[in-house]
């Protein structure tokens, strides 16, 4: 299978902290791959390293077969890699339309950009309604939609989605993930998704990795992960109950 992204033995420092300790992942064409992990596992560091905001100390990143480790984000955006950052990070005083236009900063084809803005509005109708409103005045969910829409504007082949569910209501999370799946199918965008919400992430994804303290500790198809005891216990919160109907000791993770 064709890999859009390949990461091999990546090591990145976040200040003095070694946040990634040799991570290798593969993201095949047209799939949604998710990376699960708790706070501080290194998920966001991995995303930032792939998108060029951080430089790795060791390791190789291949994007469509070309090495991209250590390159600047503006170059990578042109190559078709979009990063939708954690916490939305919209431009608060720019209007929705201007935010979207900034997403297409690396492109020069006015007509096509206008078409793509319409496409984003079709996926997120609320954005069309609010196109002249400053982005900072919108609700968290709307800002998340704008952030994803803005990421689409560079016509990416690979989209890095960093915690799109952050701070949103369960209903809104469902809505956003439905659209993410549609984008994947209809626009053919390959998606690398980072999530803490393992349930929704695994339902949307084809394949998943579990990241813990800078290492990949588990990998498998989304189905396999959903049914794995470890994932169920530690990420989905289905605690196994003993004979007396209550948990009497903390189970150890089997991957240790």
């Amino acid at each position, binding site marked *: 299978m064709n890999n859009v992204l390949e990461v091999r033995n990546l090591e990145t420092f976040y200040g003095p902290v070694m946040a990634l300790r040799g991570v290798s992942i593969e993201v095949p064409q047209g799939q949604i791959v998710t990376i699960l992990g708790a706070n501080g596992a290194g998920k966001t560091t991995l995303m930032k390293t792939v*998108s060029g*905001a951080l430089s790795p100390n060791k390791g190789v990143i291949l994007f469509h077969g070309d090495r991209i480790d250590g390159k*600047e*984000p*503006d*170059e*990578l*955006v*042109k190559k078709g890699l*979009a*990063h939708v*950052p954690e*916490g*939305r*990070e*919209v*431009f*608060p*005083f*720019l209007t929705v339309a*201007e935010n979207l*236009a*900034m*997403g297409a*900063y*690396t492109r020069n084809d006015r007509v096509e950009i206008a078409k793509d803005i319409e496409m984003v509005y079709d996926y997120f109708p609320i954005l069309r309604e609010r196109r002249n409103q400053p982005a*900072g005045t919108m*609700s*968290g969910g709307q*800002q998340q939609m704008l952030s994803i829409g*803005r990421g689409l504007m*560079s016509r990416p082949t690979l989209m890095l989605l960093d915690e799109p569910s*952050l*701070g949103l209501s369960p209903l809104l999370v469902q809505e956003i993930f439905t659209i993410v799946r549609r984008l994947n199918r209809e626009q053919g965008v390959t998606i690398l998704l980072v999530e803490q919400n393992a349930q929704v992430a695994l339902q949307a994804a084809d394949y998943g990795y579990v990241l813990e303290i800078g290492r990949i500790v588990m990998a498998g198809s989304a189905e396999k992960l959903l049914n794995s005891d470890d994932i169920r216990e530690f990420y989905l919160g289905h605690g196994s109950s003993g004979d007396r109907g209550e948990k009497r000791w903390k189970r150890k993770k089997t991957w240790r």
Partner: protein
Amino acid sequence: MDILQLLISGIANGCIYGLLALGFVLIYKATEAVNFAQGDMLMLGAFLGITVINSNYMDMPFLAGLIAAAVVMGIFGYLLDRLVLRGIFGQPQFAMVILTIALGFLLRFFAGVTWGYDPISLESPFAGRILELGGLTIPMVDAVIIVATVLLTTSLYFFFARTRLGVAMQACSQNQMAAYYMGIPVKRVNAIVWALSGVVAAIAGVLFAAKGAIEPSTGLIFGIKAFAAAVIGGLGSLPGALAGGLLVGVVEPFASRYLPSGFGPIAPYALMLMVLVLRPGGLFAQIKQKKV
């Protein structure tokens, strides 16, 4: 009539303060640090204007000289960011404050060595000419300053609101990290902001030199007053900078006219103090809230 007369000359002065304050705000928004050499950039721009326009130097027409000075200062600003300030990119903001203060000293000494320490004035085609307007006598220089400021600020407004680069500059100042992710070349945009602030400083400097004499230390006092204007307007707002400048410009002549002597020079700072107490964010503060 007297009041109107004072008001017009105050507005003309205020325009120059406003333009200089605009330079402060441009840099502050782009880098979140204050460029304390802004006043000295105005001084340098003024001397450049004198050099290209005055008959004992290069004797160019006024408008051509103005453009030449603006272009040179624009290149100066760009190179300053490219060669000096990028070296301290990522350092604490204090590093840049100290650096710009040092730069101010350098520019003052450079100007003193090159043009001497005696005041020089610019030979402009409208020096000494007066417009009579329904009983008002307006020095032509003041009228030119006001018109030029209006033209410059409107074009700046359209640049920031309508052009791709202008909107990108706003984006960079609002969320630098996101701008970086969008593929906006943040560092190059910052260099262009420095160039722009150099251009604005040069235009303000040439206009100021056409009104009064210039000497190497002019920029220091002027810069502090314009900084007060920028603070009054709210350091993050371009319209606020202009409004703050106008306010300072207008308050000054009125205070020296109607208050006991000595109050005139204090008035701008008293105003700044008052604004800081009553509205700490400045008159045109942009209130920003991040939703989680």
